[in-house]
């Protein structure tokens, strides 16, 4: 079924260029004149931590008077970093959702230039600047939003938690002071701005889908049936229930069980069994768990119509998403399940840590239609594979998937739940997109 474009639909047709983590060159008027150096404390004279010493506070930068010309210059500078998108605001919102705040600045700036009267794009630009730690962008964005939106926006900015860290800045009070409206102050994009190189990005949207969990008593029945099947008590991490037009109820459960427990269920001697199962399932490391997604089509008697193994390392941490929808547009519903795992070999000292994320589409009969796995490994907290990838549905009127990719240098805790480098301060490579086209003949998407 065709799905309308949504406000949250994202990315675009543009070219990306590699970015530096260094701050962009500031607009001329935004350069602080002078910042007092931090006091130097000799190593041999460490202060007693119990004594509260007065803190030397650097003098605030002198921001001077910022007018429409300076704001306009910043907007053009930001907007020119990537090719102009006709849906810049939506693209920016999508990037914001992915935690790509510096990239979103570019498209908020494009949106601000496209509609010189609207306060929302510049306000959102200021918020993106706040998330990215770009004080100049926050300053100019707030100032522009107040100029465009008046007293209501000034009041909103003054209480906005996004700007909490900037309220004490020397420029803030002046920026939220309401002046005469200055509609149309932004100039048109410069005609001689060269188009950035690189392939265009593709718009994406949220994973979406309908959700309804299975009631507890029914889950207990399913758990008992699964226990018989896998020989160990399964832990249910997620569930989904749907009813088709004919009234048939399908129940899906994402479960996990201990391989060691399953092995022990086959042993008669507990002590000898421990040793045998340990040798069988652990080897030199720690026992892995098995994970699966089962389709239950009847509860009386319990009928497990399908049971697919999923893989989220040895330990499933979270079912991030489980939903049903006609993702491929073939007129039938599919189930989308996204799981994340983390395995540290039982070593709280975290030597090697495995991370994995799996995106899996299943047909209505429980068979796997498409699976995408991204594995990461970290040593002493440092991510070893520095390429991150995400799968999202495309946001245009198609049923393709989109693979987003970006390289980075990061610590594990600098990645978000999707193992995506969400911190703008990281060393990031260019953002790219690849369309995974849906093939109705094989009823699957092209492999990434």
């Amino acid at each position: 079924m065709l799905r309308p474009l949504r406000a949250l639909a994202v990315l675009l047709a543009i070219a990306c260029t590699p970015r530096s983590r260094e701050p962009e060159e500031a607009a001329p008027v935004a350069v602080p004149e002078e910042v007092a150096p931090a006091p130097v404390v000799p190593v041999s004279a460490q202060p007693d931590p119990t004594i509260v010493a007065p803190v030397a506070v650097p003098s605030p930068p002198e921001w001077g008077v910022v007018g429409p010309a300076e704001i306009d210059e910043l907007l053009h500078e930001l907007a020119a970093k990537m090719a102009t998108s006709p849906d810049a605001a939506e693209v920016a919102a999508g990037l914001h959702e992915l935690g790509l705040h510096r990239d979103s600045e570019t498209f908020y700036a494009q949106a601000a230039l496209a509609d010189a009267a609207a306060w929302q794009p510049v306000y959102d630009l200021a918020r993106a600047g706040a998330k990215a730690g770009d004080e100049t962008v926050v300053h100019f964005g707030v100032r522009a939003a107040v100029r465009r939106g008046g007293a209501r926006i000034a009041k909103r900015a003054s209480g906005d938690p996004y700007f909490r860290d900037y309220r004490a800045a020397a420029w803030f009070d002046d920026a939220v002071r309401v002046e005469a409206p200055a509609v149309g102050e932004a100039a048109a994009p410069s005609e001689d701005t060269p188009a950035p190189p690189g392939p265009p990005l593709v718009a994406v949207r949220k994973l979406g889908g309908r959700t309804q969990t299975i009631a507890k008593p029914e889950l207990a029945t399913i758990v008992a049936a699964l226990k018989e099947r896998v020989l160990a008590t399964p832990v249910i991490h997620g569930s989904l229930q749907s009813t088709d037009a004919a009234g048939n109820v399908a129940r899906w459960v994402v479960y996990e069980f201990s391989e060691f427990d399953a092995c022990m269920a086959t042993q008669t001697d507990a002590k000898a069994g421990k040793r045998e199962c340990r040798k069988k399932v652990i080897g030199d490391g720690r026992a892995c768990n098995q994970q699966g997604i089962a389709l239950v089509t009847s509860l009386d008697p319990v009928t497990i119509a399908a049971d697919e193994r999923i893989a989220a390392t040895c330990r499933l941490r979270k079912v991030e998403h489980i939903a049903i929808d006609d993702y491929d547009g073939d007129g039938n519903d599919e189930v989308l399940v996204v799981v994340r795992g983390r395995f540290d070999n039982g070593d709280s000292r975290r030597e090697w840590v495995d991370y994995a994320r799996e995106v899996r589409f299943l047909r209505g009969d429980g068979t796997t239609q498409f699976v995408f796995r991204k594995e990461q490994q970290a040593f002493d907290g440092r991510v070893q594979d520095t390429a991150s990838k995400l799968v999202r549905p495309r946001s245009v009127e198609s049923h393709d998937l989109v693979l987003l990719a970006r390289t980075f240098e990061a610590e594990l805790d600098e990645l978000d739940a999707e193992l995506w480098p969400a911190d703008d301060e990281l060393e990031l490579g260019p953002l790219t997109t690849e369309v995974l086209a849906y093939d109705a003949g094989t009823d699957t998407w092209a492999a990434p």
Partner: protein
Amino acid sequence: MRRAGAALGLLLAACEPAAAAQVEHATAIDLSHVSCGECHEREAREWSGSLHARAWDDPIFQREYASTPSESCRDCHAPSTSAPGRATGIDCATCHVRDGHVLATRTSEAGERAHPMRIDAALQTPDHCAGCHQFAFMDDGSHAVDEALQNTLVEFLASDASRDGATCQTCHMRDEGVVSHRFPGVEDPEQLARAVDVEIAARRGGGRITVDVRIEGADIGHAFPTGDVFRRAELSVTTPAGAHEAFSMQRWLGDTIDADGASLHVRTIDDSRVPPPGTGELRETLELVDDGADAIAWELRLHRIPTTVDARTLAGVTTSHLVARGVVAIAGPR
């Protein structure tokens, strides 16, 4: 108790009345081992070479603390201090100072002049050691919280040593019959050598060399190895031509379902260590390809951490200790 009494208004430095009066005004917070050593020179010297003294500075600990610093680490690795730069491990005050008094098993006039004292028989009991040698995993969502991370006291209570009236101090504060603050343990070759009895027999047949190993706790009051779950002992056998086999003595961790069936948690699923004396023995059989050797060499080593970590990040730090080694003739015709 894991949190030793820390900030205590006490003075351990004064030996002479004049000095005592002087110190009384100079500092009421000096609990350093240096001050203790002014009167307790031998004890301070012994302690300074111990693992207790290095509990904070130990490179293995520092490496791990750098990656996962937590207050609970400090509770047992630097309990008497609060500023990182001043940490001195398990120092005199950790065991001997409570509520402004120096705890001791006996008192003296000089001691009473120098600082408030209190006789405390608990100093000689296993409970005094239990705070840092018997505790459960932290509730990190992964490990079962009722699972012991260190289980030495429980092991001790099950052992012959406990039934015979020994205590932790019997072995770990003993040096040729004299009370010692050297705290011999994993780094003491003689104590390690006394800890277990190893019997090894090798025979050939069917193209294989079969090595039967029996290890029993001897002069030890807990499992071997004990303590941290990442400690492991390894017995290896090698022929002159290089055929090699080994097995590991350790606690094995794995996910198992909780009793309520609601979640999985990491717990000990098997324990291949040498059990405490009186609770059993360890038997294992190794098999090698018969390469015509007349004898096999065997070696028992204790590793404080996995050897893979040692090789990668702690080169130069002693993390492996020899317990015993030998050579055994292979029985049976070629």
